[in-house]
């Protein structure tokens, strides 16, 4: 089935749907990871986005239940060069095509994904519509232009959990105040802006008892659970679209150790009084080199972000830069000089990607360890 991809600047690409009919709008981005398509598909940060993989052969190893990063497929549509219909892997329980179909998502193959990627690199991430139903270029480009886009919008609402849940060690189990969480030494409340399960898995593996709350949870509700630490997750879209979470975090500053990842990091930046801005085409992939300025060590990181914290907008007496991207010198991590608060722009929970940055979860646990026993931080 023929599919047409129309970009807001009028650029068109042709492909062939391998999942049946459909039409969807989204922001078009590319990911350079060579493995891990299932994790990418189920990463809630991709809400509102249409993803193209730069690696051309996709579907090779099928899908399996263990590699889910959330309950469902989050990307709006998936564009690849060649779909490999017959998977080969001992863990595969199904094909990618069926997985997409079951999730009601479009999968399109036969695209010159390199040309598409080069276009985005040069022109920037942009609004786009993919369709098998409307193959009229003019109409489709008009639809792409008309789509609201991500800037300033709250995409978090669509992916944050409706109800609070505890991480039972393997999976989410609805419940509040740690009642359904597997036991652990440290009580961690995760404010779910669109988290990836591997964050919870890694926290649990380090002796954390994890309670997940919706992004709309208030500071009071959170503090009432007496957490040892607060975890700000990743999530989709523009941090400026979720002022309510920024507000909540502002109220939590200085109360307990806080660890933020990706959107969580950007929200912290805003909570500290800083600004964020949109990158031209963002960082999405598994090979981004980041330098930890405190150790001088380089870690190869998994990334997925289109927005970035503006370090100059922050009070340098309070907040310090801890990690930078070696490729483009962009901000990759920061910490508060007084309070036990730190955050990174990339994904130490990987999935997909290298495990180099898992140590940050250890750092968080260390922080909580130091703070435990004190009733709050006395601020």
């Amino acid at each position, binding site marked *: 089935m023929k599919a047409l991809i129309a970009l807001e600047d009028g650029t068109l690409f042709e492909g062939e749907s391998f999942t049946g009919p459909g039409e969807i709008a989204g922001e078009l981005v590319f990911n350079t990871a060579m493995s891990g398509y299932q994790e990418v598909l189920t990463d809630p940060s991709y809400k509102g986005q249409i993803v193209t993989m730069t690696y051309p052969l996709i579907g090779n190893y099928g899908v399996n239940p263990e590699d889910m990063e959330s309950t469902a497929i989050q990307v709006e549509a998936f564009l690849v060069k060649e779909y*490999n219909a017959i998977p080969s892997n001992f863990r595969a329980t199904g094909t990618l095509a069926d997985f997409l179909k079951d999730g009601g998502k479009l999968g399109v193959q036969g695209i010159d994904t390199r040309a598409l*990627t080069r276009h985005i690199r040069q022109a920037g991430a942009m609004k786009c519509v993919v369709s098998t139903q409307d193959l009229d270029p003019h109409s489709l480009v008009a639809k792409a232009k008309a789509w609201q886009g991500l800037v300033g919008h709250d995409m978090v609402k669509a992916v944050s959990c409706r109800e609070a849940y505890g991480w039972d060690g393997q999976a989410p189990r609805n419940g509040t105040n740690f009642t359904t969480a597997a036991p652990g030494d440290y009580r961690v409340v995760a404010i779910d802006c669109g988290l990836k399960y591997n964050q919870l898995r890694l926290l649990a593996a380090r002796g954390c008892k994890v309670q997940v709350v919706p992004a709309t949870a208030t500071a009071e509700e959170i503090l009432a659970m007496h957490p040892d630490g607060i975890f700000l997750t990743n999530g989709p879209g523009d941090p400026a679209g979720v002022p309510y979470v920024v507000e909540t975090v502002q109220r939590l500053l200085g109360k307990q150790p806080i660890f933020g990842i990706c959107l969580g990091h950007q929200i912290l930046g805003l909570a500290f009084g800083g600004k964020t801005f949109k990158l031209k085409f963002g960082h999405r992939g598994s090979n981004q080199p980041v330098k930890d300025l405190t150790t001088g060590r380089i870690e190869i990181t998994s990334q997925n972000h289109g927005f970035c914290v503006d370090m100059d907008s922050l009070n340098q007496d309070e907040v310090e830069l801890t990690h930078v991207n070696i490729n483009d010198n962009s901000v990759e991590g920061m910490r508060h000089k007084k309070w036990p608060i730190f955050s990174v722009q990339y994904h130490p929970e990987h999935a997909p990607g290298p495990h180099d940055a898992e140590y940050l979860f250890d750092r968080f646990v260390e922080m909580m360890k130091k703070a435990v026993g004190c009733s709050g931080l006395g601020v």
Partner: protein
Amino acid sequence: MPKRTDIKKILIIGSGPIIISQACEFDYSGTQAVKALKEEGYEVVLINSNPATIMTDPELADRTYIEPITPEMVAKIIAKERPDALLPTLGGQTGLNTAIKVAELGVLEQFGVELLGANIDVIRKAEGREEFRDAMHKIGLKVPQSTIVHTIAEARAAVAEIGFPIIVRPSFTLGGTGGGVAYNSHELEELATVGLDLSLNSEVMLEKSLLGWKEYELEVMRDKNDNVVIICSIENMDAMGVHTGDSITVAPAQTLTDREYQAMRDASIAIMREIGVETGGSNVQFAVNPADGELMVIEMNPRVSRSSALASKATGFPIAKIAAKLAVGYTLDEIRNDITRETYASFEPSIDYCVVKIPRWTFEKFPEADDFLTTSMKSVGETMAIGRTFKEAFQKGMRSLEIGCMGFGGDPKYNLEEMDDIDLKAGLGRPSSQRVFQLYEASRRGMSVAEIYQITAIDPWFLNHLRELVATEASIKERGFAGLDRDFLYKVKQQGFADRQLAFLTRTSEEDIRELRDNTGVKAVYKLVDTCAAEFEAYTPYFYSTYEVEDESRVSDRRKVMILGSGPNRIGQGIEFDYCCVHASFALKELGIESIMVNSNPETVSTDYDTSDKLYFEPLTREDVLNIIEKEKPEGVIVQFGGQTPLNLAVPLANAGVPILGTSPDSIDRAEDRKRFQQLLQKLGLKQPANGTAMAGDEALRIAAEIGYPVVVRPSYVLGGRAMRIIYNANDLKNYMAKVFTVSAEHPVLIDKFLKDAVEVDVDAICDGEITVLGGIMEHIEEAGIHSGDSACVLPPHHLLPAMLEEIRLATEAMALELKVKGLMNVQYAIKDNILYILEVNPRASRTVPFVSKATGVPLAKLATKVMMGHKLVDLGFSKQVIPKHHAVKEAVFPFNRFDNVDTLLGPEMKSTGEVMGIDDSFGLAFAKSQFAAGQPIPSGGTVLISVRHPDKPAIVPVAAKLIQLGFNIMATHGTATVLAENNITCTTINKVSEGRPHLVDKIRDHQIQWIINTSMGTRTTEDSYIIRRSALDYHLPYTTTVAGAIAMVEAMAAIRERPLEVKPVQDYY
């Protein structure tokens, strides 16, 4: 942190001659390293015995020692040069092993030389089987159950525990030499005996066989701050059991989820740290159980390897160059990525294409050898192809092999329709060079993926792609030419089908398909290899073709010239031609002309992205080359440097209107075509041996009878003496003709009178149309009848008289002018009874060009390129032959130890894989060096076994006399002993094997013999003489199979008695 300033001078050990498992990739890595270190201001001292390398170009390193790579010679260089450091990780296993031995001699300590990259403990830990296994257990990684044994008895005990099949791996060898899979006690004892013998430390590991597991490799780099990155993952199509060098491989890994890939990545990094490789690149091999994903570590190489070269070309990340920079103290985040210019080396390349590597074997050269692939590598070269899909890359790879097939199927060659199912299944179950064709046939017959998987253990992912290709092929056939509409044509081109396959399947011609593509706009586009999947802008112009929307080629408006490379290495066409192509590129750069390189061999310097202005990594076929020409429109194409591959394209390209630079295709034809060449010689009054050309068997017999036996026969248009034989009678000729005509019916067979006992001479010359200047005259050591590529030779000649040298010069000049040669020309002469015969003329670069250049200091290939671009030799300052005062000897190196049952006797068909050079003041010393360099150490005393054929007996007498004089004992077989006794030479007599025990093989096994001289008639005449030669090989005894070779050896022995070998850099010779 900046580079180290406490070291100033660095010694690099190269890898020596090209052998199986150690090919041009180490010239590529060594050249990168030398350039990188010089760029940083270090003084670089290099040792490499291989003159055909770019790294030994005198202008590259500061001091270049073309000397035997032995611990003793390295020690001498260290004593003389006093380097601060030694970089051992870029010269393959040879470099690493030599460094260990030098360290063990105490030389490094004595002169305060630091090992860079990996120290002795690290090397031992990685390479020693037991140490490695313990290290893996320490970090919680699994290795196959194994035991280290030092004796056969221990081996027997071990197998009782581990069970069959069992893998035998000797420690400290390269390319798995001596290794193999044993299925029973008999095979175990055989393999273990050889393995114990080959291992540097007489140890062999017996390992549980993981036959059928999936095999992977990761290329890892580490800097001194412990930053570790993975450059590339590689998945083998052939399952465990086939050496990775003999496997079809693909990059990146295809069938691993991210979770499994990251586990492998974690393991690689942990291994790097545990083994302690301080800086540089390493290669880690894994096996994965397809049933449950269980991961086992197979081995790690703490050095740059063949896979590193492949990974560098597959990703665009220059591993060797970066390794060199890391070795002198830089960290990954301090080294810029040349390709993107804005990013650094501290990242992991992301690729947005699929890379397929396919090995190239030459079993046809060794018909006695078993075409069976196991854990000991047998391929002599490889080709790499890049495509946007596996199917495309795979088919491009198949046609890059240059074995006459244009892809996977769609080809009349390698047709197995006649094979019965039982044989087919047996073939599938027994990996061989032919298995890929059997896979095609099995798919074509409709054998299911499941069934093929069951037999081959090739992952279904690959099999499914192959099945899809077969299905596409069927629909092409069904549609026919009329059914090739634009969409379908586009689709099949995306799957990598060549025009020639489409032509065959639709019963049309390649031109028809090309025209159809032109008319429908189905044209190749070019994509960039950029290390980053288009995330950053790339500046390095490294391209591959595909069929897609966007074309990224950047055609400049500069003057530009295209150089066609030589494709995968094979016997007869190897690094020498790559050397010439690289020089052509350098020369163009000097002239300010844009150079465009086209080649498909990932091991080479020519496919390094900074060798030429542009690199197209593409198959060297008419279609693929024409596509690039259409895009780039170069002012001309250089076809005379890449050996037979580009030369075969000269006429098709010229017919398509492409300007061929230098000597015209017509002149090439005039030299190749028997009749035309004969007329030319007659015109010039030159002689050639009586000869004729036969199109059929009867004709051949008639001609041979006329000329008189023995005759030399060969098909025309071949390189490396493929299928060339000396034939002594009509019966043999009949058999030969029957065989050859099935090989290549399109070319006639050439028949020459064989000039027995003639001296052969090789000449390389350059002609600019006005004058001809000889590069060098080389006198063969062995008498006529041995392929020039296999014969040792000396420059300048040491026996020829001035009058003959003058005659050779005049003949060469006359032929060059008559053929209107513009560029290089090679002539082979034979001299018999003081008469000069012309054997053949090749108006192109020959295999000896780099040797002559290194011997004389004249960059012939560069000069020839400039001549081809219209410059005159006089203006280039090369108007007179350079005749050195010193002597240089080229010696060939053979792969016999890789192939069981193969005779080591030399003949007119080339069998050597590489060459070395010995250079010194006298012939004797130079010859001695060449022997040491070729791995044939000259004994200083002991017993020499002499067993020669009857006609050689008189000539061997003075050799024996000289040996006695030098203090050797002589042992001889009966016939030889009788003649020696008649000449008053004392010797003991020993039985041939057929004469009963104790026989000479007993003596060989008892280490009672130090050198063997054995000559034999033509082919494997008597089993006895074969057994002598094979035992010599198996027991690493120096052996000589010609009288002339023996005479030279004795001269060398005498020379080193007088003066021990000394080292001198080539820069001091010119």
